[in-house]
């Protein structure tokens, strides 16, 4: 489903990603962990080309991404983004639209879905994320956890093949994290291919099929959670996990 080969990105002199290579199979859930500033979010955002990169290539959902794709590839990139959904740390719901309208907007204008069909789909998705009764609510009337669940439903409405989560629970209170996490868990169980940048160790441990530890622009460790989380091999992974466990 996803193949990353020698992906590099620099910011001026600073190397953000250094020849990252990885493969993700259909239906996998990858937890991307690691210290702040290591390049986790940047890697994720390169996968739907919200960020450009300087070297290497990415094959994702049947689309091939290379450095320097610009205006000429706009249609290709839009098609890619329909296939690769994204959920943001700050939810980024559209504040002037109700929950339902947030979900129906893109299917209507991008995929030209009929209004009735897109509404029906929106209600199904809201039911699925446990918000069937809040279709008419505006974002400011919803809690953070509810907003993030609407944002997930919004991403799902485009029927993506891959979902990217950029720290989906970092802006939430602990009691709201669980409701969002359980939605992601259900998606994983349903076979969705997902990459989740997270600091939630429980999630990485229990739900992910694989865990990537990213540090200084490279994947320092890549393996099933039983191996990476419980018995990390690299110094950076050991230090990272021990620091996460210490406060608890």
């Amino acid at each position: 489903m996803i193949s990353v080969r020698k992906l590099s990105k620099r910011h001026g002199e600073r190397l953000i990603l250094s020849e990252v290579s990885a493969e993700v199979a259909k239906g996998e859930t990858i937890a991307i962990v690691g210290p702040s500033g290591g390049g986790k979010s940047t890697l994720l955002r390169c996968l739907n080309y919200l960020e450009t990169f300087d070297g290497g290539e990415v094959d994702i959902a049947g689309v091939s991404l290379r450095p320097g794709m610009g205006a000429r590839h706009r249609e290709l990139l839009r098609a890619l983004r329909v296939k690769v959904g994204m959920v943001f740390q700050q939810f980024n719901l559209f504040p002037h639209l109700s929950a339902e309208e947030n979900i129906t907007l893109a299917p209507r204008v991008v995929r030209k879905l009929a209004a009735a069909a897109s509404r029906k789909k929106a209600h199904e998705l809201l039911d699925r994320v446990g918000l069937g009764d809040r279709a008419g609510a505006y974002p400011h009337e919803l809690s953070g956890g509810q907003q993030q669940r609407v944002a997930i439903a919004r991403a799902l409405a485009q029927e993506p093949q891959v979902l990217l989560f950029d720290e989906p629970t970092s802006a939430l209170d602990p009691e709201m994290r669980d409701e969002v996490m359980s939605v992601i868990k259900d998606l994983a169980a349903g076979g969705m291919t997902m990459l989740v940048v997270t600091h939630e160790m429980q999630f990485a441990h229990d739900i992910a099929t694989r865990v990537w530890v990213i540090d200084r622009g490279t994947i320092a460790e890549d393996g099933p959670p039983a191996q990476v989380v419980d018995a990390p091999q690299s110094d950076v992974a050991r230090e990272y996990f021990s620091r996460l466990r210490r406060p608890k």
Partner: protein
Amino acid sequence: MRSALLLLALVACGGDEHGGTLAKIKKRGELTWGADLQGGEPYLYEDPSNPTQIIGFEVDIANALAHRLGVKARMVQYTWSNLVPSLERGDFDVILNGLEATAERGERILMSEPYFIYAETLAVRVDSPYRTLADLRGKRVGTLNQTFAHDLLRAQPLEVVLYEGNEEPYIDLEQGRIDAVLLDNIIADRYGCIARRPRVKCLPDDIARGTYVIGIRKADPELKRAIDDALAAMKKDGELERILTKAKLWDKRQTEPAPKTVSAATKYRTFDTEMVWQFVWAALVTLKLSLLAFLLAVPVGLILAVARVYGGPIVSGAARVYIEVFRGTPVLLQLFVLYYGLAPYYSLGPVQAAVLGLGLNYGAYEAEVYRGALLAIPRGQTEAAKALGMAPSQTLRHVLLPQALRLALPPMTNDFVSLLKDSSLVSVITVIELTKRMTIAAVDMRGWLVPGLACAALYLALSFPLSELARRLERRLARDQRPQAL
């Protein structure tokens, strides 16, 4: 109102009982005369070869008069339409600036013997059939505000179009925006029927004759006597003829008997039902102009703002040039250019030009409001739309602009109220809106207070419901933007 003005005049010239203005003129050795440089050639104007020097036949007459009174003359610049109230207030000693002798003026101020006899000349397009005022029934005839010609036209069943400058009525006549111009022969000979305007001709018969006189305060009969004596002497020894000949104004009319002081047969008006309706109508014109102009300004502003924020260097640079030019130059100038400047190439109607001018100008202001609003939207909104596969145009239309307009609503309301008042500027291109109606009424009623208050009340009546509407809209749209208590 009139007695109040007189009282004001008396207070301002408190020293009049002790010898009057004439004595003061002699004492200070200076005769001050009020005039408006905008009258232009031949009355008084800046010498083309030395613009610090003011010349003209009225300058010559003022100097000759002052010389005969044994003093020097000094010109005081005033807007022509305010000369009479300013004289009454005591801002200068006399008016000497194409002041026509009318019965109404005679009631308000003293008038000297005439120093010039003019004819009201009717100008029409060369191919038009009109020969007399009677032929022009129901047609549009241009003239200057507060002139004898204006009084003559008002007594006729035709539509009077009022101008502020000498060129503009003839430009509009050429363009077919009006059917005739009635003005005195000095203006007609110099601005109307000239080689530069082959499509305009002046009819040979004088529609009426009148005289230019010097205006003097009611309280100064001894000054009037002195001036009349001086004028009589100037006529007798040929100085007046020399002055008028030098200005190419001497004609056989000057040797014929002066016409009697005419009455334009217009009475002072009162604030009656008819005037109330005229005010209401003018308020509707103001509202219509403002609404149409704003309907133009909003899309112009949106396009400019989007070009500024998201356009490449050329597009955003062009938008910036537009904004700077329209914001950085007076809207009055833009209206003049649109209406008169473009006339030879494309002739816009006054309302069209007004809406276009105000709309394009306010578009520049709206652009900056929307630009600020677009920049205030969090980046995450664009990212979320992009990540859903939305194209730039879809993102703008469905995500960014609706949010920007919500943010822009308070400043937009502000701009609209401001536009409502700025729309008064379009009177320079002959549209009679609320402020112009007020100034016309003030002249007709010889008082500013009642028309002024009526005008203010109507502006408020227009702007208040609109701000209230905007306030409600704002509350409905910006549910999530209600302020937290501090």
